[in-house]
């Protein structure tokens, strides 16, 4: 029992992102309001971003910026002291993608609102069927 608890605690980052993903999915699937769905989508994407960032962390590692001594001499760099920068780089791209998707989704929501005067999915559907 304690072994499982220890595993859960040791890998807490994975559990956090799983929870966030599930929250995001839950919101997307069950909520009827378009904005809430979009928010859920964003939470989902953020969870994945968090996951990636977390895998780059190291115990005792520091920010991955190389400091140059004055006079331009560089020390030998030992990667083990720095946290992995690659996931951060990848996630910069992913954040941009998430923002772009958010923008597109909100623009669509605005158009839908202008057309149907509501943001509730069931009302929209009934208006479509009614009209």
């Amino acid at each position: 029992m304690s072994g499982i608890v220890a595993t859960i605690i040791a890998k807490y980052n994975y559990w956090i992102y799983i929870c966030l993903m599930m929250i995001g999915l839950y919101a997307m699937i069950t909520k009827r309001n378009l904005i809430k769905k979009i928010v859920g989508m964003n939470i989902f994407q953020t969870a994945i971003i968090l996951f990636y960032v977390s895998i780059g962390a190291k115990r005792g590692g520091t920010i991955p910026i190389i400091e140059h001594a004055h006079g331009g001499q560089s020390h030998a760099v030992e990667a083990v002291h720095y946290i992995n920068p690659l996931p951060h780089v990848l996630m910069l791209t992913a954040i941009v993608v998430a923002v772009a998707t958010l923008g597109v989704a909100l623009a669509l929501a605005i158009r839908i609102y202008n057309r149907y005067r509501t943001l509730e999915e069931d009302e929209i559907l009934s208006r479509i069927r009614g009209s």
Partner: protein
Amino acid sequence: MSHHFPALLVIAPLLSAFFISGAGWLNRRFCLPLAVASLGVAGLSALSLFWRVVQQGPVLYRLGGWDPPWGIAYAVDFLNAPVLVLICIVALLNLWASHRQVEEQFKEKTGAFYTLYVLMVTGLLGITVTGDAFNLYVLLEIASLSGYGLIAMGEDRAPLATLNYVYMGTIGACFYLLGIGYLYIVTGSLNMADIARILPGLYENKAVLTALIICLVGLWLKMAFFPLHVWLPNAYTFAPVPSAALIAPLMTKVMVYVMIRLMLTVFTPGYVFSTLGINDAVVWFAVIAIVMGAILALGQRDLKKMISYIIVAEVGYMVGGAWLGNRAGMTGAILHIINDALMTLCLFLAVAAITYRMKSYTFSSLKGLIRKMPFTMGAFILGGLSIIGVPPTCGFFSKWYLITGALQAGHYGFMAALLFSSLVNVVLFFRIIEIGFFEPFNEGHGHGEHGPEPMNEAPLSILVPLWIVALGLVVVGVYTSEIITHVLQFAIPKAIL
């Protein structure tokens, strides 16, 4: 210069997108020539790369000169070279056929439309040519986002359909990203060839299995594999026809290509087929996809919805064929990427012609259409025959390989599903032919002349590309042997029997 073609493929359309956007502000008439020029450059690069691959073998290009796995590598081999050519051809033919409709339908938004169009092609070309898993995600999202924009430009139900597509597409892409993340954790690399090199020692690791499954689910969402297809019919139906004619032939097929790329290059067939043991289950899912796609298509009352469900069934063909686990099935699946793209393009261009004249695409507006628009319906029928699988159109040959693969694998359910789908397609297309041919009814038996309906054909700008594609279906069919012996044969690793 030709050394840089793999990069030029992606960069030319990407940069021109900015210029088109600018041109859209200044003078709308520059948009189309710019789009054609950039796609033409991409097309020429694709063709030359294809030629080089066939003559000399796979081409590897390092972006910025950085060696993989630190740099991004673009790799053109026998699997993606034909797909690159296919994308460019489809994009250019569609531009030719649709530009008139674009100028009429999107007067103020011409610049926006062409920008998104070119961006989408950028994304698709990049997905196909890249050898880096994360780069693929980036380009996938470029393609998807521009696709959302293109679809949302349609009629009044389009924004809602697009929003639903946004939800599901984003989940799909995020799953793919997650899977890549898992792979990164266990291998430390993002380069596909590199991952393939490192993975064999790790096959027992549950993370690898999870990575594959998550990536697959994500890709299945994006390619509309039943039951994850629900976004597709509405999205393709309410999209404006010029957009649908670009997206429908290409998006799902390129996703199938990515799946096959993962199966063959990254995870290697040995792992996917033998260690994993899920291929039987996947093929059964494909069977359900084919059957449900066929049945749902039967229930539709308008042309675009019907074709959308046919696409869902066709995706089932490709997924099932790839997962059969033998050479014939895989050949059939890859061949079907090419064939299905062409068939779908043919059908959607015919719909474009019909919508141009009839302003509608429901079945009831098709009455007497064979007399009014004989050339359009002729090409439509040719496309239909290809979907049914009548020789010598290309659809027959991919079906041949798929059925052969099913027989070899002993998967009679898949074969039965393929035959069932062919028969349902006969019903689907002849229903339309009946409406076009028989209705409206005259009293009596039609002896003597009814007042002949004047022929009201679509303009040449739609008809010529439409017929190029329709005849291309027959030409590609007859040349299947060439395609297979010179290209596809080498795309499939010898490990698959």
